[in-house]
């Protein structure tokens, strides 16, 4: 087993890991503040990719607008649109369920997922449409010494890492972040200090959803855009969150990256186990450290 092979698969694993990290980060933020297990997170990811695709190639055909939203603009537009959808979902639907058990939020968001998937499966083919808008500047290949790696994938890794750590820093080290954390710790007391907790909740949900949308745009040029792309990923991402610890921001990021790596390396040593190794780890974590590797026991 050469070191080259291990490095190559590890890098591909990291490539997958950044998507795990971005998605589980959003899930963790939402769970931390809202106590909602957002099953629709995968659908938000899928939606982000579709907004990029539609913006790039279908605006004229569908709406008669001769406008093309390129990849770079999509990085901004898609998260905003998905974020606004997040606001609507939170304000109009999830808000009514806060008093109830977690399971109701999960069921609601699961329903939303199925509706969104069904809608897109109606208009797009299930096996995926390639995203044609990958920018020219990122279309080349970089020689890393141990392998050739597509420039775009490298960009996606770096960009996602920056977004993840910026989010972590904002939550841990800014005033807004400290208020958010206060809201998580004790909503009633925070509200008594004059902070608008419901607004914070809405914005947090929108942010988490937007993050998923952003991940979707980043994924579009690598994987084909498909109605089921989120459904394929969300289960793994839940496992990542469970391993990292529900509600732990850094835990979500680090476990996302680490599990991507583990998955990649499993492909070197025993390929058939690659798709299940994360769940195996999840079972172990649940048995021996139920709150997750980075979570605190309540």
């Amino acid at each position: 087993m050469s070191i080259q092979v291990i490095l190559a698969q590890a890098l591909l694993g990291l490539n997958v890991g950044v998507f795990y990290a971005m998605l589980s980060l959003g899930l963790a933020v939402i769970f931390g503040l809202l106590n909602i297990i957002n099953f629709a997170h995968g659908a938000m990811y899928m939606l982000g990719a579709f907004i990029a695709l539609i913006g790039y190639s279908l605006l004229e055909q569908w709406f008669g607008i001769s406008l093309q939203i390129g990849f770079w603009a999509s990085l901004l537009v898609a998260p905003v649109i998905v974020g606004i959808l997040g606001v609507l979902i939170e304000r109009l639907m999830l808000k009514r369920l806060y008093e109830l058990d977690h399971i109701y939020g999960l069921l609601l968001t699961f329903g939303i997922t199925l509706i969104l998937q069904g809608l897109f499966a109606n208009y797009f083919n299930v096996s995926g449409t390639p995203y044609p808008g990958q920018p020219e500047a990122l279309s080349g290949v970089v020689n890393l010494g141990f392998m050739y790696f597509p420039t775009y994938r490298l960009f996606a890794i770096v960009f996602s890492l920056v977004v993840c750590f910026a989010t972590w820093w904002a939550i841990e080290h800014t005033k807004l972040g400290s208020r958010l954390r206060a809201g998580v710790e004790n909503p009633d007391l925070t509200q008594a200090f004059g902070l608008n907790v419901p607004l914070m909740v809405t914005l947090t949900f929108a942010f988490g959803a937007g993050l998923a949308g952003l991940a979707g745009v980043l994924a579009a040029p690598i994987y084909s855009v498909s109605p089921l792309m989120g459904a394929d990923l969300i289960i793994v991402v839940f496992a990542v969150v469970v391993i990292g610890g529900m509600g732990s921001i850094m835990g979500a990021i680090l476990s996302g990256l680490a599990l991507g790596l583990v998955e990649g390396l499993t492909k070197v040593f025993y390929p058939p186990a690659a798709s299940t190794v994360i769940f195996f780890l999840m079972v172990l974590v649940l048995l021996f450290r139920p709150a997750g590797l980075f979570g605190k026991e309540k």
Partner: protein
Amino acid sequence: MLKHLKQGLASAVAVATLAMPLTATAELTDGKLKIGVLSDMSGVYKALEGPGAVIAAKMAIEDFGGSVLGQPVEVISADHQNKPDIGASTAREWIDAEEVDMITALDNSSVALSVQGLANDKKVITMNTGAGTTALTEEQCTPYGIHYVYDTHALPVGTATAMVKNGGKSWFFITADYAFGHSLRDNTGAVVESLGGEVVGNVNAPLSTNDFSSYLLQAQSSGADVIGLANAGQDTVNAIKQANQFRIVQSGQKLAGMLVFITDVHSMGLDIAQGLQFTTAFVWNQNDETRAWSERFFERHGAMPTMVHAGVYSAVTNYLKAVKETGTDDSDTVRAKLGEMTLNDMFVKDGSILPNGTMLHDMYLVEVKKPEESESEWDLLRVVSKIPADQAFIPLSESKCSLVN
């Protein structure tokens, strides 16, 4: 009173039913001929068969005059979504409720096997133009199942033989993880080994995989001379594109697309696909006859025909000929006639249908042209050599079909 009325109605219906064959033509069991085109209309195989197959079937019927034995010929089509259960239930509905006389297309081997089995129970002819597995004419052959265009025996005979002879001794397979992929991998592996080559590894990838990168890197690290792609359609396109992204071919390994269609080459572009060798049953610009038909097809479909599209046209045409010549749509009679005919049209020269359902015809080893050699958007392939029918397909003497041996 009500009882009488009911009885009266019942007997009226009975009389009407009895009278029907008298008013309709005597030859066709239900007064018309209906052909079902069951294909992947939305997934990975849409481009190679899908809606184009419906157009090809309609062209065949129009060229035949639109009717046979004085009755109109209809086409009905549906999407099997690459799911054997959906394929079988659609076929069942077609046969039971729509009285479909022949089912064609049927890409995806898993769907093909399930529909061919069902059609056999119902005594309906299937003329498979899209699926690859040899099981259709071997282990699971039926008296009514015909395999028309290519199979997983014919594909490697051309491609793998050529590659091994050019020094590609060790092979690593990336296999589509279902009936077709496994069948193609096993048959190709057998050809490679029979020529003194060796299979050094294999990895199974699910149907419609988007990201082949880690499979490709496994193939790369195996150090094999040739990476055999035992898959098809969009999967092959994705794998070849990504192999290019990771500079695998440039690093000295060769890619062997075991099942490649002209639509795949068109979608990859000549820059990426040039030099790729594969086996096909049809090249649209091979001669004046194929070119004339293909250009008519292009006008209606917007893309040049794959071998499957051309095969649907030929299959439907010859089925209609057999119905016309026997004067009936009875499956046993028509199937017997098809077995006696020598098939000649723009798709096939001197073809014949064996008792196990294999349609014997020549295949071609082709190579994708270099960008500077191509004269037009669809001028993509160069014929390297002809693979004679008796080499391409499994000889009857070696057949595992229960109808033969």
